[in-house]
Structures are given as structure tokens and as C-alpha cells.
């Protein structure tokens, strides 16, 4: 409990790290912060060209179908892969200054969250401009969905960041895992395409229900099935607790291992 209080006390540090990351990333480039919006927009452009001209799929407006799932997926996968190096990359700080180490993965994941929220602005803009529209009744349900995903990402980042300090290979292994995980999650395809008998397994993957929920709200404009999210909530909380405890154990020797 005192740890949580302490982390709360360090909230300004979390905010500064996020700000530094967001501002620092495009600093020096001509377009600067605009890249935050341009980047997803250009990605979308590529998908549109590829999937509506070259690789036509049976799904209507496939580029949107893909895009609304890909943005939240990128949030998760960058929390997973980038999170693994968030302690190592701040080596000097960890070795020389005291602060609750949890700050680093929290800042990283929150930064990815902010990135996603900024990208979602682009998503909304595209939905409106393309005439697809937004269902105001379904929109509020996005909040719990984002929260659940944040929990999952945070739990995972606690684990990956602390273990990577001791086992540097994890950083590279996780890139492969993230890729496989993406294919096992209905990001590029619909859950309906998964054979009936395999579906229960699919629902065990918390990201399946999260992505499906995003798509329900943004693409199908309907209220998501919250009961499918329950598994994700449970797993999210479980992961967070495991991650928190593991991190607490491993952080004691960070300064020596780095």
C-alpha cells in the first residue's frame, strides 16, 4: 500500500517521462508533433490501397475493419516489446537514483496509451469523413474496454521489463511472440472465420475479446458483449498482480544486474 502511495507521489515523474517521450520523439523533424497523427493516417492510406485495390477481401470496408483493430493492437504489442527494454534503457538512472522502479513500466505503458488515444482521434475523423459514422450509444463502452486493455498491458509490461533485466534475450524473443500473438488474435480476420471448435481457446486469449470489443464499437457500431470481456478483466487483474509481485521481487537487484 505504501508503495502505491509512493508511486502516486512520483506522478509528476511519470507525467514528465511521458511528455519527454512524446515531445522528444518527433523533435527536430520538420512536421514535429503532427507526425503523431500523420503516422496512423498514412498507415491507413497504405491499407486502403492494398486491401481495396490489390487484395480484395470479402469484408466490407476491410481497411477500416483492420484499422480499428490494429490501433489497439499496436498499443498492446508496443507495451509488450517496448516495455521489456524500458528498464534497461534507463540503466544510468536506475543505477544512480532512487525512485520507485514501477514508474518506468507505468510511464511506458501510459505513453503507449496516450499514443493510441491520439491515433483514435484519427480513427474517429476517418469514420466520420468516410460516412461510416459513429454510434454515440456504443461509444461510452470504449472506456471500460480501453481500461481493461491498459490493465493487461501494464501487467505484461511489469513482467517483461523486470525479467529482461536478468535475461536480455527476452527482448528479442518477445518480438517473435508479439508477432505470433497478433496472428492468433482476430486483428486481421474476423472471429467468425475461426473454426467453431477452436473458439473457446481463442476466448482464453484476453486480447481476442478486447479487440473484438473495439471492433464492435468502432466498426459494427454496436454495444460490445461485455460478458466476453469478463475473462479479459479477470486475466488483466491476475496479470497485474503477478506482474506487480514479480517486479517487486526482481527490482531489488536491478542496480547490480544492469
Amino acid at each position: 500500500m505504501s508503495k502505491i502511495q509512493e508511486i502516486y507521489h512520483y506522478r509528476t515523474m511519470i507525467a514528465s517521462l511521458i511528455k519527454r517521450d512524446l515531445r522528444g520523439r518527433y523533435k527536430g523533424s520538420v512536421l514535429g508533433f503532427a507526425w503523431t497523427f500523420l503516422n496512423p493516417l498514412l498507415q491507413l492510406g497504405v491499407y486502403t490501397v492494398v486491401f481495396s485495390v490489390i487484395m480484395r477481401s470479402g469484408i466490407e470496408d476491410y481497411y477500416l475493419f483492420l484499422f480499428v483493430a490494429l490501433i489497439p493492437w499496436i498499443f498492446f504489442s508496443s507495451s509488450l516489446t517496448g516495455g521489456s527494454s524500458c528498464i534497461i534503457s534507463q540503466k544510468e538512472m536506475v543505477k544512480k537514483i532512487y525512485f520507485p522502479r514501477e514508474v518506468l513500466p507505468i510511464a511506458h505503458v501510459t505513453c503507449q496509451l496516450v499514443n493510441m488515444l491520439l491515433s483514435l482521434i484519427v480513427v474517429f475523423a476517418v469514420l466520420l469523413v468516410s460516412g461510416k459514422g459513429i454510434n454515440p450509444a456504443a461509444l461510452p463502452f470504449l472506456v471500460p474496454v480501453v481500461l481493461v486493455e491498459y490493465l493487461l498491458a501494464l501487467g505484461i509490461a511489469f513482467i517483461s521489463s523486470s525479467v529482461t533485466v536478468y535475461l536480455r534475450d527476452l527482448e528479442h524473443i518477445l518480438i517473435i511472440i508479439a508477432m505470433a500473438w497478433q496472428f492468433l488474435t482476430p486483428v486481421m480476420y474476423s472471429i467468425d472465420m475461426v473454426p467453431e471448435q477452436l473458439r473457446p481457446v481463442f476466448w482464453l486469449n484476453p486480447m481476442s475479446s478486447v479487440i473484438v470489443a473495439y471492433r464492435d464499437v468502432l466498426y459494427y457500431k454496436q454495444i460490445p458483449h461485455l460478458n466476453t470481456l469478463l475473462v479479459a478483466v479477470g486475466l488483466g487483474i491476475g496479470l497485474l498482480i503477478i506482474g506487480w509481485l514479480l517486479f517487486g521481487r526482481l527490482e531489488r537487484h536491478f542496480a547490480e544486474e544492469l
Partner: protein
Amino acid sequence: MGVMTDEKNAIEVRNLKKGFKVYFDKGSTIKEKLVSKNRRKYEKREVLRGISFSVKKGEAIGLIGHNGCGKSTTLKLLSRIMYPDSGQIEMRGRVSSLIELGAGFHPDMSGRENIYINASIFGLTRKEIDRRLNDIIEFSELEEFIDNPVRTYSSGMYMRLAFSVAINVDADILLVDEILAVGDINFQEKCFDRMREIKAMGTTIVIVSHSLPQIEQICERTIWIDGGVIRDEGIPKYVHEHYLKEMENKRLEILEREERKKAEEKQREKEQREQEAKPEKEKEDPGQEKDQEQQPEIPAQQPEQENIQNKPGPEEKKEELPPFCSPLSIRIGNKKIQFTDVKLMDTDGKEKTVFKSGESFVVQMDYKSDEQDLLGNFGIGIFRDDGVHAYGTNTLIEHDSLVPIKEKGRVVITVTDNCLLPARYMLDVAIHSKDGIRYDDIRNIIPFRITANKKDIGLCRLDNFWTVDGRRMEKREYED
């Protein structure tokens, strides 16, 4: 959390132990972890072997010791960057550590933005930083540049900004690691004053430093850590003398070991050459020559034995000093040649400790020796009281010559027209061998003072004259 035994203590440390695993071949990749699991050897290096001390509220202590003795580890344990293997640390109040300056600085962001980042890493909230912002900027003297990106700063400016943030983080306990060497002299002075201010406000301070004078200026107490245990503890000046002497002895030991190794090598080479040059038949008479060859070895070997005898035990604070030495003196050397008396006098032979700038003075050194076939290099050194080496010379430097040692003798150096400026100074005297082996070496033997009427400043007077419009200035030429 344990219980503090004394309410007045800000820090209590009990039986602190810490070891590091030192891997012979550190592997943190999976292959190394799995494949060579059995071959993964490491050595547990005990850095701290049980350290206990306490620091009172508002007290400042210095931690000293040679590299790797465990002082920085102690500081890291206190600041919670690392955790001890066993033992307890209890701290009362908010802890701030000045171990790393400029943490989290982003070169592309402005000085002002970086203040926020850096201070937040020290655990300050936005409001707290807002309140200190002006103080920090003012202290850094970077008002004009504060909105420029930090990458445009010189390294001095960068450090000034970093230090200003660090020093303005209020804390009840401040842990400092070797950071007072920041920026130019003026800024260093300012940092130092600020440290004193912080101390005056009642902050408890722990400093790790190699700069003993700095510790002497701020701290009430020094803890000397050696080999992971506390070797000595007490008033900084005395602990430092003890420490310096020990360091000197260690240095000497190393020097002598090298010296001996060199001599042995020379000897071996010689023998080899002899064997090559004179095969078998002349083997009977190496006696004569060898005796001569062995000579350089003697001075190298014996001092070591003497050193061991002379080595101060942990309890012993000071060696008996002869009456001609000031109580601050530190005496080292193997004593094959010994000073029996040293006097600082004017040219009339009157002993004095206050001289005018420009006055001549004489250092008269009497010695004795049991061995008569030695050659001695007599030298003096003059240090200003803040440690600046004002002057030093010896017979080898001056005359490219050594003094043939008799049973007893007197060596005198006369300094004509000393040009030192007013200050307190310390005289050192020494007799070394040509190769630098110390026979007798007495630091701080006689304190003395230089006075002057002129008010020019610096270390020594440089003779000069002024010319105005081509006419040389003579005396006061104006009326007021």
C-alpha cells in the same frame, strides 16, 4: 521497519553486509544461462562486511576510503538504489541523493522543461517544482538561456543546471557522492556555500568524497571504510591524517615492491648475461661482482620489513613525533637516514615563523644515519593552507647532485627573496634516494606565515611595472 534506538538519530545503520556476485564470464543471454549452466562460475565478493554507524539529525559526516572499499556501496544502500544482504538501515525523514546529476535530461528540450523532468525524478511534484523554479534558475545563473534547448549548452552550463536542480531539492537527509567538482571555481564556491546553508538549516548530510579538505570544511565526523569495515571514525582532521599516512605507506609498499622486482630482474638479467658470457670455468668467482650488483637490492628490501613494524595499528592514531615537528606533521619513510632537527630561520640564524614577502629564509636540516655509503636527495616543499602546492625543489633538481651521507650532517637551503604572497603555509622536508625511496619524509613540519604591505593577490608576486602613455609609473601621481 525496525525501531530507532535513539530519537536524535536521523540515520541508523546496523551490521550492514553486502556482497556482489562477480561472474568470470557474465552471461545474461539465454544460451549462456542454459547451455553453460554448470560452467557458470562466479565469485562472491564481499564489499561490506558489517558496518554500523549512526548519524544525528543535522550532523554531516564524510565517508572516505580508497576505491572499492565500499563507501559508494554504502551510499547506494542508504539511498535505496541497492538492498543489503543483511543488516538494517533506518532513516528518518525525506531522503534525497545527489549521486547522479542531470538524470533524464533531454538535449532537445529547453532548460526549463528539463528542470521539470529532472526534479520530478527526484520525487518532486509539479507544485513543488513550480515553487522552486525561480530559485533553481537563479542559482544556475542561466536566466538568459533557460528557454534554449539543453543541447546548445556548454558542458559547464549543463552541469550548473543539473546541480542547481539537485541542490534545491529539499530533504531531511542529503546523500552526496563526489559532486562538488562542478563548473568553474566561482560556481564551486557557490555550491559549497549552499551545502553549508543546507546544513545550517538542519539537514543531515552524508558525503562520499576523495576531497578531504571539502569534508573537513563541512563535516563534523569522518568514517573511514577499509576493506568493507569501518577502520577509523572521528574528527575529520585526525582521521584524514591517519588515512593519508596509511595511503602513503601503501603507495610506498607498492613502490618498493616494484623497485625490488626491478632489482631482481636486473639481477637475473645480469646472471644470465654472466652465464652466457663466462661459461663454466669462471664460475668460481662470481662473489665480488655479485656483491656489488646486489647493492641496489638492499634499500628496496629492508624498508619493507621496517614498514611492517612501523605500520600503525587500527587503534594507533599518531606516531610519536620529535619536538621539532608540529603536531600536524605526518612522518613517513624507512628512516635509514633521519632528520634530527629542522629549523626555519631568517638569514641571521634566528628561528622565525612569520616572514615578509620578499624576505629571505633558511631551512636548516640536521640528519643522522647508520649507513654511510648512501646518497641522499634533500628536498623541501611549501604548501599553502588550502593545500595548494606553492613550491618544491631538491638538490637533484637544483644542482643535479646528491648529498653523500655521513654519520651526521647538516644541509641548508637558503631561499633568497621569497615571492610568496600573504597566507599561511606549511613546510615539508624530505630525504629520498635517487630513485625516490623515502628515507625520511615529514609533511607539515613547520607552519609559517607570510605577510606583506602590498595588496596584490594570488600565490606569488610577479615583479612588474606599469607604463602609461609611454611613461613609466613611479609613485602616486594624483591628488584626491
